[in-house]
């Protein structure tokens, strides 16, 4: 923006600031870069840069039944969480956006509670509840718990889409004879679909990366990838985890870019 550059401070006078800022950016990104490079190392020793290159850690990841099963569980749970959380969050955001209900503030607080409440407390609480109703170590239990955690992100994302959308268009459609649902589906949804898709992607990654609650409520056949990684890291540093981590980083990049592209399509 031109107004910023017109401040009478030259870039040269700010070199120290740029230097410092770049260092902090490096601090943020370096660990991921190092892990990606290390995952192609051919040795079990932690050397950087690696002396020889190989795909052995990827082979060890994809070749292991345990890691593969855990990955499949995580993908299943994340997909189901996305499928459940997206419509629930969208419906809630729609109702909040209309804003005629009393206690919208309280409803908002309740829906976004899982962002504020310490996740360890959610973990212990769900474990406590699930142990009594037999939902521990089940996919259903995981999906329910992850949906609650993903819901606020869907609500906030869709809500921000709805805020920049003119609700009167839906009123027009209804005055022309569409019922509420088809007015939403044919008029509103196409215009906020990018927020909905972003919300869905956020729900997916929230579930896929979730650690703490999964530690408590998953196990046995339904051990998630993050739970298995956590336990592996407690024991020793296995370079296989570098390969898995690289896959997770790539997944984050892909989903974030997708959300970005969809977000721009608005």
């Amino acid at each position, binding site marked *: 923006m031109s*107004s*910023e550059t*017109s*401040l*009478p401070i030259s870039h040269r006078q700010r070199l120290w*600031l740029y230097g*410092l*800022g770049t260092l*902090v*950016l490096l*601090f*943020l*990104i370096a*660990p*991921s870069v*190092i*892990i990606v490079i290390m995952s192609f190392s051919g040795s079990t020793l*932690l050397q*950087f840069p690696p002396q020889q290159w190989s795909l052995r850690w990827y082979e060890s990841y994809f070749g292991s039944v345990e890691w593969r099963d855990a990955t499949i569980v995580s993908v299943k749970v994340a997909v189901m969480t996305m499928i459940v959380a997206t419509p*629930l969050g969208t*419906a*809630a955001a729609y*109702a909040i956006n*209309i804003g*005629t209900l009393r206690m919208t503030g309280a*409803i908002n607080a309740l*829906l*976004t*509670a899982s962002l*504020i*409440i*310490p*996740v*360890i407390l*959610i973990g*212990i*609480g769900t474990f*406590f*509840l699930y142990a009594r109703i037999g939902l521990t170590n089940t996919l259903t239990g995981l999906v*329910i*718990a992850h*949906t*609650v955690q993903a*819901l606020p*992100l869907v609500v906030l994302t869709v809500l921000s889409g709805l805020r920049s959308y003119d609700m009167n268009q839906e009123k027009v459609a209804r005055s022309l004879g569409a019922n509420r649902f088809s007015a939403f589906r044919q008029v509103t949804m196409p215009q906020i679909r990018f927020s909905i898709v972003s919300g869905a992607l956020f729900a997916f990654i929230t579930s896929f*990366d979730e*650690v*703490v609650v999964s530690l*408590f409520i998953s196990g046995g056949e339904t051990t998630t990838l*993050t739970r298995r990684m*956590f336990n592996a*890291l*407690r024991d020793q*540093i296995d370079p296989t*985890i*570098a390969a898995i981590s690289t896959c*997770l*980083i790539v997944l*984050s*990049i892909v989903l974030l870019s997708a959300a970005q592209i969809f977000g721009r399509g608005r």
Partner: protein
Amino acid sequence: MQSARLGDFGAGQDGTLNATALRADARRESFGLLALLSPGLLLVFTVIIIPIGWLFWLSLFDEGGAFSAANYARFFEQASYIRTFITTFKVAFFVTGACVLLGYPLAYMLSQLPRRVASICLIFVILPFWTSVLVRTYAWLVILQRKGLINSWLIDLGVISQPLSLANNFAGVVIGMTHIMLPFLVLPLYASMKTIDTDCLRAGMNLGASPAATFRQIFFPLSLPGLASGVVIVFVLCLGFFVTPALMGGGKVIMWAMRMEQTTSLYSNWGAGAALGVVLLAVTLALLGLFQWLLGARATGVWSSR
């Protein structure tokens, strides 16, 4: 409340002819909206509110089942609990401080760069934000541990002969958590710095202030609300943080959340674990409430920028 107002209008014109119909319509509308909200609310209520309420109830009874405050009294009596609280607050202070020291210059730089460059730099903040906490903790373990990258570099360069202990201790926990918390400070701070009117700064400079004085007297005070919201969210998240201290603390740095996990999973002492959780939640809510009261802003705002 458009339909209600229309109802009043109708009532004024020709009695109560369609006022009832409109009121019924408004009620139907409210029911419809509630129906849309109910699945989400029900889920949150069942998975979060009921279990936490239940745990709160449990925390009021001692192991024999008698009504007592024993679970809470323990926090003041047992040295190990006091140590846990001190460690937790110490970690939270150090991490928050490190985040401010690293995050403020970064957010300031981002806010001063042209929008195009800033949005590229922001990728470097947002990408780690969306990368699994486990992955990032693993990365720091690889970098910092005894035979890790930093130690092997320093030994190869001949700077040190014995490996430094960087992981599995307090320092490791602080470094790892700072990396994870930094985006939570930078993003709201950057957003609030973007709203500072450059005309104010230009006016200051026109009136003869040096760039440093302009920053100190105009920019910095205006950026404080954004900084405060970042500080509060980072501090609160640190208090309940589990993954990084559990993996990088080497069993020596016992934080609040780890204590909760131990008492419930290891010792199955639900009352004690629940009491810890209740106090943690109370402290969290108190800090957030205090912040909201002081600044009239919602700390959860940071999430929408995620």
